[in-house]
């Protein structure tokens, strides 16, 4: 007997929550307890009084499971609202990465050139290394990191996706 996997699609969810102790464990634990995937998760306070946080979750699931994920998140007591940004239409997704590259000579020059193409900024430099800051969608950052692999990539730190809907309405 073999266990079958269902086909999944990637969705970005915005979850507005009360900023109370344990909220992140509550959300993350819901995903593990029910067998849902988390590809990335970011969280930050979004109000002056620090009472409300916005969590952006990128998940992969079949359409039926996605409906469940939204419903399950929505019924948690501290959750204000849940929006499936991918399902609801056009939205902007951004991620920030810090990329450390080591090298001298041609590799160093090539790394700088590529950074320019990708509008990455140098935020730290030594005689033999750079740290680049680059923002963009997942694909852009993936490509930049791959290219840096050719010219002396040492380490990558990525924030995970934040996302917001286009247009004048709030999520």
């Amino acid at each position, binding site marked *: 007997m073999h266990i079958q996997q269902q086909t999944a699609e990637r969705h970005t969810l915005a979850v507005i929550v009360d900023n109370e*102790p*344990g909220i992140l464990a509550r959300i993350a634990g819901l995903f593990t307890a029910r067998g849902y995937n988390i590809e990335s998760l970011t969280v930050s306070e979004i109000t002056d009084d620090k009472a409300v946080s916005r969590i952006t979750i990128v998940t992969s699931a079949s359409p039926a499971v996605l409906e*469940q994920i939204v419903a*399950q998140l929505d019924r*948690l007591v501290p959750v*204000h609202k849940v929006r499936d940004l991918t399902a609801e239409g056009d939205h902007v997704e951004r991620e920030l990465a810090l990329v450390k590259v080591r090298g001298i000579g041609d590799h160093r020059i090539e790394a700088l050139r590529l950074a320019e193409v990708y509008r990455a900024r140098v935020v730290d430099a030594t005689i033999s290394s750079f740290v680049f800051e680059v923002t963009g969608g997942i694909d852009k950052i993936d490509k930049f990191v791959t290219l840096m692999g050719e010219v002396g990539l040492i380490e990558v730190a990525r924030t995970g996706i934040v996302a917001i809907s286009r247009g004048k309405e709030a999520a």
Partner: protein
Amino acid sequence: MTEKSGADILIETLCDLGVEIVFGYPGGAVLPIYDAMFRSGRIKHILVRHEQAATHAAEGYARSTGKPGVVLVTSGPGATNAVTGITDALMDSIPMVVLTGQVPTGLIGTDAFQEADTVGITRHCSKHNYLVKDPARLAETVKEAFHIATSGRPGPVVVDIPKDVQVATARYVRTPATTTATVHKTYRPQIKADQALIEQAVDMLAAAERPILYTGGGIINAGPGASQMLRELARITGAPVTSTLMGLGALPASSPQWLGMLGMHGTYEANHAMNQADLVLCIGARFDDRVTGRLDAFSPNSRKVHIDIDRSSINKNVRVDLAIVADAGRALEDLVRVYKARRHPKPDLTDWWQRIETWRAVKSLGFPASAKEIMPQHAIRALWAATHHRNPIITTEVGQHQMWAAQHFDFESPNKWLTSGGLGTMGYGLPAAIGAQLGNPGALVIDIAGEASIQMNIQELGTATQYRLPVKIFILNNQYMGMVRQWQELTYSSRYSESYSDALPDFVRLGEAYGWKGIRIEGPDQLDGGIAEMLAYDGPVIVDCRVAQLTNCFPMIPSGAAHTDMLLYSSEVSGEMDDSAKALV
């Protein structure tokens, strides 16, 4: 204004909320609360023998009275022992508030004596939980906990209270208990259905040729009024009604429209009617795997309407055509009102009922008679015959006896049937009976048990003795973990791995050791007399009823089979199943 200690604030808040009974067990981290309770004298505390029993007793109390059950336990092992009951209450949507002691805030995270991460452990087995770090927040938090436990889809809420928070003082202002309900920031369950959806449901119901009402525990949770509305809806539509394990009693079993329970051990007529229906109206049930059987063969030709207070129950297992998020009682009321306002004539369901009668004629609950041994089904029927006029409250443990009780004990009203459905917790029945008896002092409360399950919380015999509770335990003793043995017979060529109940205690003398009356029933000729003796005794009685050892519970839909593939007594099979069947629960 004088300040009060956190412990005193807690007790006052409980009193303000109308709490009369608390089930609990003291320990180091709750001593200030126990002292405050002692000094107040306003709350009746029931001392259980194990914290798990406190949670099941609270469930029994809640399920039989409609009021939330309240549990008070200490930190560490007190809290972890309560976890099974908390999970049970979550699965069966039972309103319960569990107050746990915690080590002082300064010691949290240091692996202190009797420290456990209670909020971490209970986060995913409770509806919500709190760690209270400030006595000034305690009253408000406890009120919110009761509101969340009892509203929307009910469930268990845990409030973890460090010992220093119980001792520290704060100002306490009494506020009406109801204010929290209206002001919660994020938690606002939808109670009333969208009117347009109700209209659509009525359209579908009126147009259906083969409708069936599939009802569940949500109707019981919605209060006795919801059961009345279900009866009215059944009357005006003439539709057949089936129910999950948790929903038994919402429609009287004596109603001609009652088809019996559906699902794995449901009746032939209920499962075939579900299979052949053109409209399934599901009210307060959740298309659980025990109910649906094989999903791709579940009610294949029907349109489905699902009324549930929990949006996440909708489209979880079965896709439905019309989803209505609402309280079951309010939605039923709206359905009845709209249906009547439109003056729909009662639909002509003659053909449908004729088909149902042919399924009924199979008499799927039939079982072979025996003059030598007591058939367990016969014992349940005899118990029903001797007690039903007293409208008893029945609790059960988990296993064959539970299914036989569900099949053969006919319930006429809600809140009389207390069983662990979702989690299937052996050891539920005795503490639940204790809780139910405390909530219903005059009622006849019987725990229908198996000889294996009863041993899981047997220590609670002492609790019933202490509080002079006249609960009855009726053990169907077949000397096997019967359901395990049955599955081993059906799936594993009768290799009875560890399912024999060896080294059983003498239940009669065990009961007597705790101050109970003990009765043994060994043959069919002793059955009615033994039951009469049990009922005549004005105190707790444990009955060891020896039943046929190898009887199987039928009808049965084997796991992963369709509703139409039922095993009946006449089709009894045994042997070995393939791996995909073995992997199913």
